[in-house]
């Protein structure tokens, strides 16, 4: 008596899921910790000092979180309106933040009340930063100006009014205390030198600029705005180097991994993309639940912190090596009955005789039904399964048994609409089409008599029809493209002399790596 052979679920090749060192590296994060903030998280900044706390600016507050705490270790609430751009100084002692009420406040990280208040802007200040000598503050505002302030005297040093729209991003050079860069909604990026009255370099991003980033070497500048991320070569006078268009909504934030090898961009399309900075190809991609406004990486990529429009702060921590092992250990089989009887540390004695029991195979739910020839129930349980490949494999098995039609027949409105939903979702998937097309034909055959009795089913049938028509058009287009490519290849291939007459067929000599 042979045992029941379970239904084979074919393994389909995963397209684009190549395992590269990058995917292994970026997948090695734990499940995200989520913290709800009071409003959209507009800025995140890591402290350069050892515990690497980070400041999260959301609504009218700035929270400072410890690296593993889910509660803020410190909160700054002395803002009259929405706060922006909470930034640490390079010694980690001071924190500066702009505000919608045009006042820039400077805090001691250990204190509560603002040490200095810089007044002078006439509109909200979205950009604040410390210069590299730690004595000055750069601010950029919606009043189209950017200013430099002196911390000890709390006075305004210079003001530049060259932008013609809101200044929403900016950064200071970490190598030169006088150089800073601002990006504005007037589509330009400007490089200023505090020793000079005017900007020294202007670059046209051709989209409202949302974020700028300087490479550690400060030879390259990255800007984002609209759907584009652009890289500029500052040493060649602001020459555009690359323009990347990998997001389908505005790119809001940029980041650089700690070793400077990977560039990260976050966008309103809820994705974070990671680029290789040598060839600017996307090497990995993170999905988030909502549009992303801010992004920051802890030193050594220990955590990725992302702030979203719905006020959720998502923190992903890197797995430690022990935890990695733990995951591998989880796949181990659970302790067997024998362990419970004899104890965990029981070691078989020398003359113990080991009796191996046949391993009981557990059948999946649909296999249990198939074993009993309950074909309709088998299909039902397979449909409950969320994985389409399993459902399709069960359909294929039923078709092989010659009972697919019986399994599809005799369904009520709810059951049928569930089935049609599945078909609409998967019938154009090339992996499933051969099986699902026969199933669809059978359904149409069976239920054509009752068309028009249920509005739900009718609507789904119409959708299915549209889907199939669109797919046919699409396939036709693809065939046309294929034909064009064939002619191109045929003309570009060198004609080869073959020793025997009548045996030159270049198409037959194209080595392919299909399958």
């Amino acid at each position, binding site marked *: 008596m042979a045992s029941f*052979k379970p239904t084979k679920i074919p393994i389909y090749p995963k397209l684009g899921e190549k395992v590269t060192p990058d995917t292994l590296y970026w997948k090695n994060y734990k499940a995200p910790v989520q913290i709800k903030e009071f409003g959209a998280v507009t800025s995140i900044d890591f402290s350069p000092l050892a515990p690497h706390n980070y400041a999260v600016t959301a609504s009218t507050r700035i929270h400072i979180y410890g690296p593993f705490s889910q509660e803020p270790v410190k909160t700054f609430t002395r803002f009259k309106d929405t706060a922006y751009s909470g930034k640490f100084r390079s010694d980690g002692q001071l924190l500066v933040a702009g505000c919608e009420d045009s006042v820039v406040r400077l805090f001691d990280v250990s204190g509560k009340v603002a040490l200095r208040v810089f007044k002078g802007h006439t509109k909200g200040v979205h950009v604040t930063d410390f210069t590299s000598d730690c004595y000055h503050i750069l601010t950029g505002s919606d009043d189209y100006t950017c200013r430099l302030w002196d911390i000890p005297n709390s006075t305004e040093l210079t003001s530049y009014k060259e932008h013609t729209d809101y200044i929403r991003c900016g950064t200071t050079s970490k190598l030169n205390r006088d150089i800073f860069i601002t990006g504005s909604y007037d589509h330009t990026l400007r490089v200023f030198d505090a020793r000079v009255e005017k900007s020294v370099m202007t670059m046209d991003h051709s989209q409202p600029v949302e974020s700028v980033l300087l490479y550690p070497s400060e030879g390259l500048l990255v800007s984002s705005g609209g759907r584009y991320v652009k890289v500029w070569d500052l040493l060649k006078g602001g020459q555009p180097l690359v323009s990347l268009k990998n997001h389908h909504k505005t790119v809001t934030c940029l980041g650089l991994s700690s070793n400077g090898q990977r560039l990260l961009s976050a966008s309103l399309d809820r994705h974070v993309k990671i680029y290789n900075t040598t060839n600017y190809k996307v090497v990995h991609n993170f999905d988030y639940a909502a549009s992303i406004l801010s992004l920051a990486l802890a030193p050594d990529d220990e955590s990725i912190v992302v702030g979203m429009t719905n006020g959720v702060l998502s923190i992903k921590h890197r797995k430690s090596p022990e935890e990695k092992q733990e995951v591998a250990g989880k796949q181990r089989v659970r302790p067997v009955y024998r362990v419970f009887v004899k104890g965990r540390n029981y070691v078989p004695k020398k003359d113990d005789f080991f009796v191996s029991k046949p391993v009981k195979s557990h059948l999946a739910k649909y296999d249990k039904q198939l074993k009993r020839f309950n074909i309709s129930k088998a299909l039902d349980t397979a449909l409950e399964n969320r994985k389409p490949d399993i459902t399709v494999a069960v359909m294929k098995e039923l078709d092989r048994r010659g009972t697919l039609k019986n399994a599809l027949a005799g369904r009520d409105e709810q059951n049928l609409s569930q089935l049609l939903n599945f078909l609409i979702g998967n019938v154009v998937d090339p992996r499933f089409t051969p099986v699902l097309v026969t199933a669809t034909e059978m359904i149409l055959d069976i239920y054509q008599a009752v068309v028009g009795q249920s509005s739900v089913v009718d609507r789904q049938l119409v959708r299915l029809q549209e889907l199939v028509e669109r797919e046919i058009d699409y396939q036709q287009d693809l065939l046309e493209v294929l034909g064009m490519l064939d002619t191109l290849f045929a003309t570009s291939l060198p004609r080869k002399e073959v020793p025997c007459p*009548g045996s030159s067929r270049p198409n037959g000599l194209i080595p392919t790596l299909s399958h």
Partner: protein
Amino acid sequence: MVEHAEIRMVRRGGSKINFREPVITNDSRFLLCAAGESVNVYSTSTEEFVHDLQGHTDLVTGVVLNPSNHLQVYSCSADGTVRLWDFMDGILIKTFIIGYPIYSIYVSEKHGGVVFVVVPMANYKSSELFQLVAVHLPRSGDQEVEARELSAVLCDVSPHPGAVSFGREGEYIAATKGLQLEVFFFKKQKSYRFSLKSGMKKGVKNAFTCVSCHPKEDCIATGHADGKIRLWRNFNQKKEYTYTTLHWHHGAVNTLCFTPEGTNLLSGGIESVLVHWHYTQENQKDFLPRLGAAITHIAVSPDGSLFCTSHSDNKITIIQSCVKVSAIIQGLVKGDGVWTDLIIDPRSKALVLNGKPGHLQFYSLHRDKQLYNLDIVQQEYINEEGLDQFEVVKAAFDARGDWLATVEERRKKGAELEINLKLWAYDKLTQSFVLNTTVTAPHEDRITGMFFSPSPETTMLVTTSLDDHFKAWLLADHSDTKGKLASYSEGFWSCDFVGGYHLLKPGCCSYSADGSLLAVGFQEVVTVWSPASWELLTTLSQPPGAIRDLCFGRLSCSKYLLGTSTKNQLCCWNLLTCSLEWSTPMDVSLLQADPLSENMAAFCSQSGSSDLFVFKPSEPRPLYSQKALCTGKVQHAVFAPRDQMLESCEERTQWLNRSQTSAQLTPLSRSLPQLLHTPAHVLPSASFLCAMFVRSLLVSRSSLCLVGWGTLLHSYFQVSPEMFDQVQVRAPAAPLKDIQRLVPKPILRFLGCVLRVVVLLQGEPSPQSENRL
């Protein structure tokens, strides 16, 4: 040196063991079943073949235990005799000559000295009418007795052995035919007939298929073609008979059997489920599902402890205490066809061909035993008629037997062809093949040929298909991938090259002996490729006629490429000059190269029969030819290696096997089979026998080497597709001195190997009796 040149035929087994109901002996130790022209005795505990009872000259059609002596057994045969055997010692006790071909035999304890047999009606010899006659066996001391005392019991019965059954203590006999049940009471000497209306519900007739009578009560169980079982009672009168109906089977009930105490009724059919009905509580039943193939017969041991079921895949299953399968006796499976060709597994030297649906069977030619079954499709087999099942259509081994490639195919009516290419790696630990790679839809159309490259450096597979392409598959090197894939040290197969030629359909392909050239036949054109660079080197063509078979020469003839075309041409091209060396008009249906020499075997069909030629491509004259080998066309053939001498084995059966093989050649050992056929107590002492036997082996071995190597075609099997019962070995021994001179002796001894050709024939007329049954 053996001088005789004529071909001898020896039966080699491979017979159908599911032809008739098996019999379990009273002590439940042995199982007897009809197998071709002999009765095989198996052990029920070890499933090992014990010995066979040989003597019948035609198909054995029935085996029953002698009710008066439980150590004896009656067997009947289509040769018109009933023989009485002592099955423990394998001795023929008596032969009763009836004179008519016998189709089945029945005995009853009550009727001592009488056997009931089904024979054709005397008056209508040619027609399909049969009668049940009682034969009074004469009591005389002679070995052969003519039993002419026949008295007809029932006229017009079915020749099917399950259609007649003895009732309670032999008081009546029930027979079914068509829609009629006939019961004959011996006391009253009167018979009653009961008819059913031919219900044509859903196109299924309710004709009787089998009958079984309750051993203690007056009750007859009948099986029907529509899957119903009827229990008839009160049938000793014409009018007031009753019957109850049991229904579980959805196909026809093939067989029915009551347990000896009558408490249970067993039934089986195409569903391959043994159904166990409780006689007293009729709606209660137990099942033993998934027995492998349709059940054709059920037998119960006289003490009721063992059941055994015969299956349509030439298998007998022994079931202990209703629930546990304790032993499986498996013969050579004869599937619906041999699509894979005959292949020799380089490791086990077993013949590999289609077995059960979706399986490959490994069959040892030398031991007449199925070694194992490899499940290729790995799907639950649904026992139902009219389903399109996956079938293994192609199989190939690489030169060392490390890899097995299989192609399975399923063609639905009006739907796309489903093809899977699977590659199996040999696992030394489990001694079997493990699935390595599955390629779904490797080609868009049928695969016509599949070959491994013989070169030892690369493992490459080539498939040709009707979709105008051939593809080369290579074992991918996976040294660079890490992580999950690293656990597979073997790597996976992937496509390396896709080739085609003018949108012609490739029909066949062949590798040269060293794997440096690949010849692919595209209809009329032979293309020669270099597998290293995938360059088209040259094309050869010899119209008219599409290329049917391609074969490279080997060893000294490796510069030749042979091809056969559909327009009766055998061509030989010289690859150094790229020109035709010679061609001859021959209708070659099959061309095979000997893997160990440069010789080729060609099968030609001429005027309804097949001829065999063995030749060297470099020589114009054939080395060996055999005219009219068999009738019909040779479909498959393969060179099979001679098995190595086995280690000293003490099993008596093994001796017999060995001695029979060598008996064909050496004069000394010719006496051995007779020695071993006689009972043990009349034989000389074992030590004497053993020494003699060993000596015979030694002599035979050296002569085997010489003769065998020289003749190459030492013996071959001849198998008819209708029945594997007719497996024969022919041993021609025409020594060819030329080759002996060429090949040095040490090499011969080293190889120690003689080749056989295994031939599967089509169109061989089977014996008349078989046709009718």
